[in-house]
């Protein structure tokens, strides 16, 4: 049972002036009647589910995907998505959590487990029979874009393998890789290391664990708190020592910056230090650029004279950082890149939301806006997006490959192979 304090996000319900702007923007409410919208489920319903009441009586709040579009547009600053997340957590506390959500929440554990025998794991997970079973037995949508385990080892294994080649420097930065980079997409981390080293920084990768977001969004607050405490113990010291902590996963960095402290009511100095030190990698690179320190030694990405058409979608969690679109700003420095900015609200997947069988159709309907946008960009053969699950969803919805902006940047430095997704050293 999470109790209330004057800092709790629930109390932002007092700011609501009922204008309904959030409801008119919520991508989920637009495509399904199963969700009554941000105003209804957030500040409005919250008045009926106060502390100490016997139930959290509205289960439809579970249809909120957590995309935070509502927070973005609310003119008064109601933390709607967080109110919804807390309501879900109370539901979980009262009614327990389905095995499926427990699985999806254990991103890190699954990642680790699969990494022992990634070929086997991929085969086991990705054959049609097991996907049907997964849907029937645990409710994971059979069509949903599940990731594949890296068959070339984890990101930290790569760091270890290449340690003799890694740059040593007085200028140091801590890299938060997150579970997806660690187990499924180590090449994203490689690209990040290439970019940081290109700019003269030594990259530190101290031990770290899952940011806890998958558990937060599935309402398992107690478990999330354990993970968060782990990260505070391991990383806050770097923050206090003045090292920036940068991440390529927009949702992990958002969690360290504000979701975890806010949802878990964490006011402790460790959480605050970690919060202060954490950056999205492009946010940090933009700072570097503003100081004239960013290497702009770029080469064009397409070999011929043709411009490379690149639709770019800023994930909703990225927008929740409220830092503008730094990835777009930095990518625009690359010559020959024809960037097309998407204004779609959400790709639909919203973390683990779109994996759930009952929510998969909702997620695909939500994503339609983005898929249509990409389809309308003639000549586009690849897309860019900062968040892993959003990229998987984008690929699923558009049938085009999608890359993290850091991959394009590393490639523009000539230190990354965009096609084969690996560092060029």
């Amino acid at each position, binding site marked *: 049972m999470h*109790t*209330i*304090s*004057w800092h709790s996000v629930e*109390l932002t*319900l*007092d*700011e*609501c*002036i*009922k*204008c309904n702007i959030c409801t008119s923007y919520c991508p989920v409410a637009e495509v399904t*009647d199963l969700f*009554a919208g941000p*105003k*209804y489920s957030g500040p*409005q*319903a*919250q*008045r*009926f*589910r*106060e*502390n*100490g*009441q*016997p*139930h*959290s*009586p*509205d*289960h*439809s709040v579970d249809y909120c995907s957590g995309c935070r579009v509502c927070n973005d547009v609310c003119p*008064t600053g109601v933390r709607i998505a967080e109110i919804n997340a807390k309501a879900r957590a109370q539901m979980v506390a009262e009614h327990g959590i389905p095995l499926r959500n427990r699985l999806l929440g254990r991103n890190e554990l699954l990642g680790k487990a699969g990494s022992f025998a990634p070929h086997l794991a991929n085969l086991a997970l990705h054959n049609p029979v097991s996907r049907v079973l997964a849907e029937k037995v645990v409710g994971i949508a059979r069509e949903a874009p599940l990731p594949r385990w890296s068959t070339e080892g984890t990101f930290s294994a790569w760091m270890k393998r290449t340690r003799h080649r890694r740059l040593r420097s007085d200028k140091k930065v801590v890299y938060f890789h997150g579970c997806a980079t660690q187990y499924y997409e180590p090449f994203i981390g490689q690209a990040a290391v290439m970019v940081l080293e290109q700019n003269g920084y030594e990259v530190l990768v101290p031990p770290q664990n899952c940011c806890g977001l998958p558990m937060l969004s599935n309402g398992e607050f107690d478990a999330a708190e354990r993970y968060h405490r782990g990260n505070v113990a391991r990383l806050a010291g770097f923050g206090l020592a003045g090292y920036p902590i940068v991440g390529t996963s927009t949702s992990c960095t958002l969690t360290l910056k504000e979701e975890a402290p806010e949802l878990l009511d964490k006011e402790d100095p460790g959480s605050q230090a970690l919060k202060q030190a954490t950056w999205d990698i492009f946010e940090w690179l933009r700072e570097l650029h503003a100081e004239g320190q960013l290497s702009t030694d770029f080469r064009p990405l397409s070999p011929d004279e043709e411009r490379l058409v690149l639709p770019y979608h800023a994930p909703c969690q990225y927008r929740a950082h409220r830092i503008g679109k730094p990835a777009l700003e930095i990518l625009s420095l690359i010559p020959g890149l024809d960037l097309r900015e998407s204004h779609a609200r959400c790709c639909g997947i919203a973390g683990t939301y779109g994996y759930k069988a009952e929510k998969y159709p909702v997620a695909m309907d939500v994503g339609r806006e983005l898929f249509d946008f990409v389809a309308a960009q003639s000549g586009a053969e690849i897309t860019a997006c900062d968040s892993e699950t959003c990229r998987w969803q984008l690929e699923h919805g558009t049938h085009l490959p999608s890359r993290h902006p850091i991959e394009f940047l590393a490639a523009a430095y000539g230190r990354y192979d965009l096609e084969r997704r690996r560092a060029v050293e």
Partner: protein
Amino acid sequence: MPTLETEILVIGGGATGAGVAWDAALRGFQVILVEKRDLTHGTTGRYHGLVHSGGRYVVKDPKSAAECIHENRILRRTHAHCIEDTGGFFVVTPEEAESDYPDRFQAACDEIGIPCTEIPVAEALRREPLLNPRISRVFEVPDASADSFLATHATVQAARMAGARILIYHQVEALLVDESNGQRRVQGAQVRDMVSGELVTIRADMTINAAGAWAGQIAALAGAEVRIIPGKGTMVAMNHRLVNTVINRCKMPSDGDIIVPIHTIVAIGTTDEKVADPENLRIEPWEVQLMLEEGEKLVPGISRARVLRAWAGVRPLYQENFTGQDSRDVTRSLALLDHPSRDGIQGFLTITGGKWTTFRMMAEKAVDRACQHLGVERPCRTADTPVPGAEQGHYWLGHRLHEIEEARLQGELVCECELVTRAMLEDAARNNPTVTLDDLRRDVRLGMGPCQGGFCTYRAVGILHELAAENRTAPVTPESPQEEIANSPWEVAYLQSPGRHVRTGSPQEVLESKVLGPASPVTDPRTPVSNPNLLLRDFLQERWKGVVPVLWGRQLKQERLDELIYLGVMNADHLPDEELASPLTDFYLFDTTPGETSPGTTPSGQEKEASA
């Protein structure tokens, strides 16, 4: 002029009058109740919301405390669905840390039989995390909160089921006093139908004055002097439930020392000021400020949370031969004035004083005495007769959210803040005589949430207009207004439950089910209240009245948006029919300049209300 006959005439449609009508009807009397506006227009609709355990009065006024705990136990059965079982704390704040009051409090509770358990402070803070952590002791008592609108309506429904006739919007203008045989005798009253303007004579063997703070005015009509000590109390409502238990300060009763969670809000209250007129109450800035300051002592930080509105009511305090200055010192015990023995006026009783909590007991005492005078012996049955709806058990805060979810009614909301569906509103309008939107507010909580009518007023007006239009095509039954009102169904047991008001059937059936009952004056094209412009204007004015005293911060932001909607987009201050007025238009209008009264408007085709 129509004339009605009855055995017992009850004046006043507050908790007490409703209780008297219910009690007398259950004992087999013919009963008519008259109320000058809607039920609970008086203090009953403006109280603090607390079902007293008696703890508050246990040291200072043990008689009243004993009445409270006795009735608290009964009401939990008879009016279960009108009550939320919040429980109550009496907490010792740092200001009283040295006082011996807490020990006296505990001893007095034991003495009177009020269950009172001291619990660890940590336990209290766990249950109420925003409570002042510096409190030193906490006692738990069986306080609760109650919806007096619903409770009074339910009591009246029970009275009607036992045969009573209820005439709302009927104002007593004179008592029929007979002075033949050298004896004064009240033989009923002359009342005015406030909707049609018509006068009605009601003849009765016994007239019971339950007009609360107005009881002195009524008694004067019979030539009896009853000096009510009207003690005004102001309450401040916060936007949501910052606490979920009734929080009392453990000290001698004073201003602003209770916070009551009731429905979606908490109310800090109250002040206690002697006033001259129970009808036109001004809320002074110092009162609001004092409530917030005192509230801080119980819940530090509360004054920075969003304030929703403020309202005031007048205690109908009565103490024979009271000479003190401070109305806090007047007993809260009930007062039954036996005018035959007290003033030599036969056929007339006044029942006043008391609390909302003790209304049933007050009714019992009054009707016992009426039986004596009428020479019959009929035992009181109210204590064992639950009113319709009580079988639902106590309500809980989340019940509307739960029911809306179960029946998937999210798309049906008219008032989004308080979760009022279209069908709830329509059924309330069909089943109750409805003269203004404010009547429906009391029935279903329309417009009582954060936006204070910002989004539901125009919707509700539209719906009523549509209903009335549909109804006009139905044949009009040429009944008198009294018949119409008295015959309306008054089905109120499930008024507050969205899940009980779900439209099923073919579109044609749904359309037909929407037609208003004969009772609603809204359907009568002759009355000004069927005018949507007037409905809109009145309701906005009524909501505005309670928001003005708290117009800062977030509520100011809200009102700016509401202002844009109604004044900017709808031009609501220049609607047609500006000259029209309902029986309540005068009451809603108010003037914020100190020391002046509002000009008011004159109802078309009826006399200006002579209340001031």
